[in-house]
């Protein structure tokens, strides 16, 4: 597929509407398999069934970071290559990223309640995800505040790239802050040592989440293109009424 074809929004719309049903089916299938595997996975001897929150928490965390990468590439597309669909892709990814980050936080809190006895501790990992969530909300607020989509796109692209540079620094600072105040947490959600029987369902769930992201992203891009067309129609309508 030459890139020039994708650059044409009309061509993109046709492709998107052809691909969407298949992607939806693939997503549902992956989730069905994943949930089946989770149901048959053994409970943790220490954490019991609570550990299964991990199967949502960890893929959500991966996608929370992945969405920012997608947005960063889209931002480069907007600023450097001036690809006409780049800011559409960036705009469509932002609310999805925010949603996955929120999902990661909420599952983290639900998991923390029985583990720590409270919904929230200012643990290094959770806190960096919270800061990431705030950054997503900032991008969303910028998109909503700037009226003209082209200007909003460029502004959001700059913010996204600044965020991409700053996120590792933030992560590092927060980790440093967290270890300063408390020893590394004993119980880590999805730490490096993971039992093999849990790895397969986790990878299947990760695939399901990835497919979910692709489906929603494509649908959101399609909606955004249509929203811009409606905007253009309204402008034309105002012009035609000039008499």
């Amino acid at each position: 597929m030459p890139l020039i074809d994708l650059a044409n929004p009309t061509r993109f719309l046709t492709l998107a509407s052809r691909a969407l049903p298949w992607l939806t089916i693939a997503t549902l299938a992956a989730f069905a398999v994943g949930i089946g595997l989770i149901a048959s996975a053994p409970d943790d001897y220490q954490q019991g069934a609570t550990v299964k929150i991990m199967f949502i928490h960890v893929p959500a965390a991966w996608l929370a970071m992945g969405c920012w990468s997608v947005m960063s590439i889209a931002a480069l597309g907007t600023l450097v290559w001036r690809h006409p669909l780049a800011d559409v892709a960036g705009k469509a990814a932002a609310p999805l990223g925010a949603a996955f980050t929120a999902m990661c936080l909420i599952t983290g809190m639900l998991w923390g309640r029985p583990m720590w006895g409270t919904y929230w501790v200012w643990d290094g990992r959770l806190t960096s995800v919270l800061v990431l969530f705030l950054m997503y909300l900032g991008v969303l607020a910028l998109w909503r505040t700037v009226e003209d989509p082209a200007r909003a796109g460029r502004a959001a692209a700059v913010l996204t790239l600044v965020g991409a540079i700053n996120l590792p620094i933030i992560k590092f600072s927060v980790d440093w802050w967290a270890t300063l105040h408390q020893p590394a947490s004993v119980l880590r959600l999805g730490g490096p040592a993971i039992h093999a029987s849990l790895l397969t369902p986790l990878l299947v769930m990760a695939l399901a989440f990835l497919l979910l992201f692709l489906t929603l992203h494509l649908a959101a891009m399609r909606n955004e293109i249509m929203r811009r067309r409606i905007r253009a129609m309204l402008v034309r309508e105002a012009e035609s009424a000039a008499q």
Partner: protein
Amino acid sequence: MTALANIFLRDMRLSVRLGGGALIGVLFFLIVVTLMPFAIGPDLALLARIGPAILWLGALLASLLALDRLIAADYEDGSLDLILMARVPLELSLASKALAHWLTTGLPLVIAAPLLGLLLNLDPTATGAVALTLLAGTPALTFIGLIGASLTVALRRGGLLIAVLVLPLAVPVLIFGVAASNAAIVGPVPFGTPFTILCALTLMSAVVGPFAAAAALRHGLE
């Protein structure tokens, strides 16, 4: 009456359509609350003790944020001229605008407060107390803010000045808001005492605010 209902509905509709103000206020609230542990450390017991104060400070600063647009938006597009020329008493129009402003920017903060209480390790009683005091106290912040917004409306960079003008006036609200929350959590004063004073402050500012703001706008004419 229809005129007042109309300006109220118009302001509600504008904030819902723009969607920015309320969300940015809540986001700012969330950021302020998140920053506190970075500054004072993640000690949950300490956070729980000063949690009501953090939430109140956050809500106070967040409610300042949107004040900038309360009158200035109407000033910039010429609507304020026509509002001044209407036969509807200016005080009542301003009160309606303030009410709409509180519903779209103040109330979301009250709703967000219990969620942020989780981050600060507040127990249900404390969370409930903070939410209740915010519900009773944030209207006072809006009505006091109305005065600041009216005084600074014609100034460039008025937004910065609003904060300087309004924050000292908000001191009593902050004192009794936090006092009532703490009274509900640790005592020893009964919750009712500071809470009643907080309600009185709100009622008083609901009266003083619109009159002072209307006077400020009329005298601002040149």
